[in-house]
């Protein structure tokens, strides 16, 4: 393996280079400079390490990089298959065994300014930062970085399919090389750091998590750190859900899972095992808690189609995994009479079933009806399984089963044909072989239970690619990677964005009661890290909306995060929308103003107040209505978004029923409109002051007079009509502040800045009083 090459040649197509510097701001090694005379970039071949990120990110495809990345060879981690498979519980993958190995691998990280690995990670771990700290052997610091995005790095680093996630999205992988071993570094940090957790002050919010798998763990950890009182209900006698029984000990040792729950308990999370919460009785649970998060997984197995299956009994993979692990841990199995299995499937679960069977002294044949080239099997798992004596057949399926002697099952295996990755395999009549086994284990995947589907009919949330990919993701170059054997030629960027859109969807409650769903229960079968990221998303969305101090009342205590969406034909609506946005921006930290075609329903989970501004479509004085794109957006909103709305339109002659139509469509989505205004094109005045006031009264929290005061003190003019917020509280706060200022004035006889401000505040106060009496 030779990775270091000196023959890097970067060509800038100067005819096409526009000097936009997209490459320059993203180059990890500062090899790119700008020639100010021609306003085009140049690349220093000596400095360039050929990560190809500039090539991937150039909007005009004006850079060509030749040569492989000039980085050291990847430090491979250690793996130890048991010499004696039967009865073995020892962990197979061992990761890095020394700090030298860790530092060597960490040194390969380019610390990219726009790290695509972070996008590839389903929970967006700050990978370059924790790697940089690990390189300095600051494991506690690195662990604190991980804490911001992950509740269980020690688990994720053991079970994630990193080849198509963070590592597949590494700049080096996108350039066709072997990526930085992110997972091994993460694992080393997680295993070697000592994390001091401080139990936060209780804030009164109570949260119930149904299920104790990754989704609940993710939600519980963030909620608990936010001061909420979290209770996890697990129907099994041991907590951990899928982590405990779905993943064998040799991949994820039980003590690792114990560690995760230890941490949660230190944060004050209560775990109640052996307590089943039927999905149909969530309302009852909700009556006892402020919020309920359902992380019950997708546990309904996909049945295998086979002739004669009614005459025999198939074993579910999860049942086998649980029984086998228990038998292994207790040693209560007869290795001389281990189970002989036919495992249907070749995914993670199928491999785990087969390998556990071998550990029990049995045999296993896995059949995957997909062609080897298109199979979802992880190469490393396949290799390990085969090494341990598992037989895996691709392009084969079971066509018929029938009872045999002694309760055994005779299975006829036939060949299938699959020509393309996207095509469904065709089952042929050609018999591969006929085998007789003790059990047929179904490991073809899972789906939502009927119980979940009936309670939440809109589930599962589809992981879909938008028509136009997120522009930041496109700009990062994550979609432009070359085929890479390491990442199994997967389109890692598309995969990551689809995942992320589902993650964002987790921020919406599923019903008006405030019940959230996360993990496999939300999207169908996914991965451990995705489920955890969903849980975290639920918690951050809730805490973000309300603020931790609001826990007791569930009311907002922060100024709202505002999204102004506008559909403008000629710019008038846009102008007013931006004016309103600018006005509101004086009183809150987050105001985003976007044209309607750049807004998607899933974005609303990150805002508390949405102003919908539209032009008036129609026949000038008849059949007026909001713009069609605006109505489409409103109609696509997820119910129970819990945002507040303001609606505005600009009109030439008559707005007709435009505002009413918008309000009705919003109401159909349970969104309350707190203010509305129609602005004439001839309006030249100071703007919709009354509208702003109503917005302030309706959306700003009662306690947030500070933002208003800050605004008034920082500005040279104090126009009371611009002040947003509840008048009573503002008046009170202003009186208090003025009296403070006067006190300062009394201590200093010179005319000070403070004095001037106090005078201005006084005039504003008068203005506010006037405004209350005479609304304009």
């Amino acid at each position, binding site marked *: 393996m030779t990775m270091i090459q000196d023959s890097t040649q970067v060509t800038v197509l100067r005819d096409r280079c526009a000097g*936009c510097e997209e490459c320059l701001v993203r180059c990890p090694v500062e090899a790119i400079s700008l020639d100010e005379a021609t306003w085009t970039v140049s690349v220093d071949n000596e400095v360039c390490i050929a990560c190809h990120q500039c090539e991937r990110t150039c*909007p005009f495809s004006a850079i060509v990089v030749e040569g492989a990345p000039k980085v050291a060879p990847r430090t491979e981690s250690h793996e130890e298959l048991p010499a004696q498979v039967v009865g073995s519980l020892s962990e197979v993958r061992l990761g890095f065994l020394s700090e030298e190995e860790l530092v060597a691998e960490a040194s390969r990280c380019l610390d990219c300014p726009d790290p695509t690995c972070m996008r590839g990670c389903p929970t967006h771990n700050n990978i370059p930062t924790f790697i940089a700290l690990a390189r300095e052997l600051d494991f506690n610091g690195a662990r604190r970085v991980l804490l911001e995005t992950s509740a269980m790095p020690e688990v994720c680093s053991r079970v994630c399919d990193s080849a198509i996630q963070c590592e597949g999205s590494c700049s080096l992988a996108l350039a066709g090389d072997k990526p930085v071993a992110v997972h091994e570094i993460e694992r080393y940090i997680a295993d070697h750091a000592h994390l001091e957790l401080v139990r936060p002050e209780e804030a009164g919010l109570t949260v119930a998590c149904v299920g104790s798998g990754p989704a609940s763990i993710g939600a519980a950890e963030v909620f608990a750190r936010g001061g909420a009182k979290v209770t996890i209900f697990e129907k099994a006698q041991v907590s951990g859900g899928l982590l405990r029984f779905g993943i064998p000990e040799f991949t994820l040792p039980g003590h690792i899972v114990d560690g995760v729950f230890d941490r949660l308990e230190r944060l004050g999370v209560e775990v109640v095992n052996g307590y089943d919460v039927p999905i149909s009785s969530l309302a009852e649970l909700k009556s006892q808690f402020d919020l309920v998060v359902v992380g019950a997984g997708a546990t309904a197995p996909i049945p295998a189609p086979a002739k004669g299956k009614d005459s025999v009994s198939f074993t579910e993979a999860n049942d086998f995994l649980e029984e086998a692990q228990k038998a292994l841990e207790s040693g209560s199995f007869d290795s001389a009479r281990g189970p002989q299995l036919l495992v249907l499937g070749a995914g993670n679960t199928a491999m785990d079933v087969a390998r556990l069977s071998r550990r029990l002294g049995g045999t296993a044949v896995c059949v995957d009806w997909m062609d080897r080239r298109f199979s979802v099997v992880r190469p490393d798992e396949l290799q390990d399984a085969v090494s341990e004596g598992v037989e895996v057949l691709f392009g084969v399926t079971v066509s018929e089963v029938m009872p045999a002697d002694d309760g055994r099952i005779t299975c006829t295996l036939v060949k299938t044909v699959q020509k393309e990755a996207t095509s469904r395999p065709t089952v042929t009549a050609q018999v591969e072989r006929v085998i007789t086994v003790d059990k047929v284990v179904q490991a073809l995947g899972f789906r939502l239970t009927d119980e979940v589907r009936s309670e939440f009919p809109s589930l599962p949330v589809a992981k879909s690619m938008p028509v136009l990919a997120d522009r930041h993701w496109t700009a990062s170059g994550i979609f432009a990677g070359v085929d890479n054997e390491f990442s199994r030629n997967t389109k890692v960027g598309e995969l990551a964005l689809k995942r992320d859109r589902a993650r964002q969807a987790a921020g919406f409650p599923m019903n008006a009661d405030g019940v959230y769903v996360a993990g496999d229960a939300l999207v169908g079968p996914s991965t451990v890290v995705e489920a955890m990221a969903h849980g975290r998303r639920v918690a951050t969305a809730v805490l973000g909306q309300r603020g931790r101090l609001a826990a007791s009342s569930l009311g907002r205590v922060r100024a709202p995060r505002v999204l102004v969406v506008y559909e403008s034909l000629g710019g008038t609506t846009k102008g007013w929308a931006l004016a309103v946005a600018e006005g509101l921006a004086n009183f809150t930290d987050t105001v985003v103003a976007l044209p309607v075609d750049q807004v998607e329903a899933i974005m609303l989970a990150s805002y508390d107040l949405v102003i919908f501004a539209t032009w008036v479509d129609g026949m000038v004085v008849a059949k007026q209505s909001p713009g069609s794109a605006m109505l489409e957006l409103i109609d696509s909103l997820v119910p129970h978004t819990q945002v507040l709305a303001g609606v505005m339109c600009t009109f030439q002659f008559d707005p007709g029923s435009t505002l009413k139509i918008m309000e009705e469509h919003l109401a159909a989505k349970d969104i309350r409109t707190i203010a509305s205004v129609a602005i004439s094109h001839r309006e030249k005045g100071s703007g919709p002051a009354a509208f702003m006031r109503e917005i302030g009264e309706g959306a700003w929290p009662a306690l947030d007079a500070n933002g208003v005061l800050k605004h008034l003190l920082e500005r040279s003019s104090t126009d009371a009509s611009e002040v947003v917020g509840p008048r009573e509280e503002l008046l009170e706060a202003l009186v208090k502040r003025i009296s403070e200022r006067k006190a300062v004035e009394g201590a200093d006889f010179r005319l000070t800045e403070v004095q001037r401000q106090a005078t201005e505040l006084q005039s504003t106060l008068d203005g506010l009083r006037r405004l209350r009496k005479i609304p304009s």
Partner: protein
Amino acid sequence: MTKVEPSKVIKVAPDVVSVRLRKPIRPGELRFKDSDLPAKNNVARFPLVSRILHARSTQFLLILPNQIIFWMVIFLGFLGVVDPQINFATAITWYLWFCLVFVMMAVIGRAWCSMCPFGGFAEWIQRKTFFKRTQKALGLGIKLPESWAQWGFVLSVGTFLLLTFIEEFFNIAGPGTPHYTSLMVLGIVVTAVTFFLVFERRTFCRYFCPLSALIGSVGSMGTAAGFRTNDREVCQACTTKDCMRGGSSGFGCPWYTWPGSAESNSACGLCTECYKGCPSGNVGLYVQKPLTSIIAPHRRRADLAWSIVLLWGLVVFQQVNVTTPYVSLDNYLNRITGWPNYPNPIDYTVIILAIGFLTAGIFELYRRAFMVKEMEVTAPGSFIEKVTPFRQMFLPLSYALIPVMGMDYFARQLPKFFQHVPALIPAIAEIFGVNAKNWSLVSYRLLSVQGIINVQDGVMALGMLASIYATIKIFDREIAPLVHNRVAAKVTAIGIMVAFAAISGWLYVIMQAAN
């Protein structure tokens, strides 16, 4: 509503993943000082203009009438009357359109490109829509390789020379047989569609359209500065570059131009896509004083400079080709090479190249006479990027030649316009079956021959004055620091431009005498 400065409103959808991009390099104060335009020059600040530019159908509506006309040209060239004088295809193409195109490029810039039916038609196919924002293009979407792209506008000059040769050979624009005009137009459409289906964006328009270099150079005289940034800081801070990559509302710039660094109108096709696509509303449509895009750019492009002298070579050839010495030479070469008729490819190529290189040679002599040795800079690179002492002088001087060259082309179209454009009315009547060949309009002349010569010389005088102005401005900023004896150098540079314009004006007198 009082606006707070700087704005605290976020106008690009926030990124869910935090990034730590390096800070972009800001231009120095002087870098775009000459080409940046004041806010009052932004016509998009008027709501009506803004509304028109935002509408996705705008360019479609500009293209549609021309599309109808040129498909009529294609069909009527084959099916209409044989007399080119009153055939709609030939009459509208050569008596009106070609002249109008020059007016548009000299006065506005790439106005024609915004309504061109050839690129427009091909783009409809490539985008699979008339005007909607689609996300997936039809075709292979190949990038033009650097080995080709580095020649920039020179490629377009090559196709223009080829097309002109074909036109001269078949006497298409004479105009000769109408169906030749139809075949030529059809050929351009087919070529455009083919290129649009093979290459990405408007590779055809940018590099291969026969008129691209001509419009890109002569259009620099025009008053449309094109779409530019309102605030460069906003463009530099933008991390999505929807104007280049394409966003939800607009396609990425089909011409490979970024409003954030545009300093000339030569590669802005006025297609409005960046205006529509900018999430920050930071793009405006700017107007400028005539000649600004000749004088103001700091980046002088070698491909444009060589295009200018080669196009100058072509237009002078088209003046020389009616003189007796040329006719004798052409006949002689045809006899010895067996070439059937005018123009012989050897003299056609050699004369054009000779005039082009002679012009470059005159600039080089000028450099040798005046340039200070210490100011000479040499830097290797591809055709488009290398720096040599020759280029230090050749590039700015060739830009200053644009008005003379441009007006020369314009003047050359005038006889057909003044002598034949009234025939367009009977040509239109013929479409509806009216027998109009005896109408007096068919032979009605707007101006006498002497009148036309006077107008042509007037146009050349205008071109000369414009070149003098451009030379003075360019000299003061770019050439003066390079030369000794600045007064003499300045006068000589002006003298060269005057001489070129005078030769051209004189050739018009010779041409009419020869006719």
